[in-house]
């Protein structure tokens, strides 16, 4: 089995458990508010780290390159409330254009 398939199956199984644990196992009770507050912060922390890694990371070094054009255009598109697909398309196009010209 390839690395990709192993990851696909493990993420699928783990997510299924996370989604089912409430309805199947803990019907009628609830998590402490503090635990819920902590879990809600995981997504912003991880997504911000992914922005940094995808914008500058290249193996073990921080490399500013054509991707920054995609990031800049992406930020503008998000600020203008563009839909997800448009942010992705203009981000990719800006990166490809800068790479082509440099």
């Amino acid at each position, binding site marked *: 089995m390839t690395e990709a398939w192993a990851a696909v199956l493990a993420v*699928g199984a783990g997510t299924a458990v996370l989604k089912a644990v409430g309805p199947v196992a803990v019907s009628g009770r609830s998590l402490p508010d503090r635990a819920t507050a902590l879990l809600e912060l995981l997504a912003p922390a991880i997504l911000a780290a992914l922005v940094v890694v995808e914008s500058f990371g290249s193996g073990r070094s921080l490399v500013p390159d054509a991707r920054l054009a995609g990031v800049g255009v992406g930020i503008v598109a998000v600020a203008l409330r563009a839909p997800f697909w448009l942010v992705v398309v203009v981000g990719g196009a800006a990166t490809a254009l800068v790479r082509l010209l440099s």
Partner: protein
Amino acid sequence: MRRGARIGASLFPAAAALGASFGVLARTAHLDAAAAIVMSATTFAGSAQVAAVSVLGAGGGIAAAVIAALLLNARYAPIGISIAQSFRGSVLKLAQSQLVVDESWALAGGGTPRFDKRVFLGVGMVLWVGWVGGTAVGALLGQAIGDPSAFGLDGAFAALFIALLATQMRGGRRIVAATGGAAIAALLIPFTAPGVPIIAATVAVLAGWSRTG
């Protein structure tokens, strides 16, 4: 359920387009079309899927990719608990709970006493079809692309994470957690294997948590 399907239909194009983006980007992590489609059908969670593909593509390995994705999906545990009382029948519960995504939960009034399970099911099913169908289109398109970097797919990844992050930027605690996560990742990239900075960034939730307000 029909009302839920109608509400979900308004989000269908967005789900399909984001699914298509995932399908194309999956190529950078060497996921073939079948793997991308299976992932969308079973995981059905956008941010986590893109994160897993990003970590794999950067050479972070299976463990880091799976941990990062599951940490992103950890919020589904409290979300599921908040609507647990509306579900009946063990097999049915297991199946219906898989339709939990942020949108199906929020649009059905999750976390409030007015939670409507039929709206939840309608929205969830429509979004699932859009997400998986979009992924299939994107994955097949991705396979037709030769060199991903020539199309700026790496820059598109970064832009997509910015868009996903923007949906999370409500309230001071989340902004503190995001700032901390970004700083931790930037500091660790030169010193650790790919994937580790993403997982270490979760420590930033403590900074956001201890901040009152």
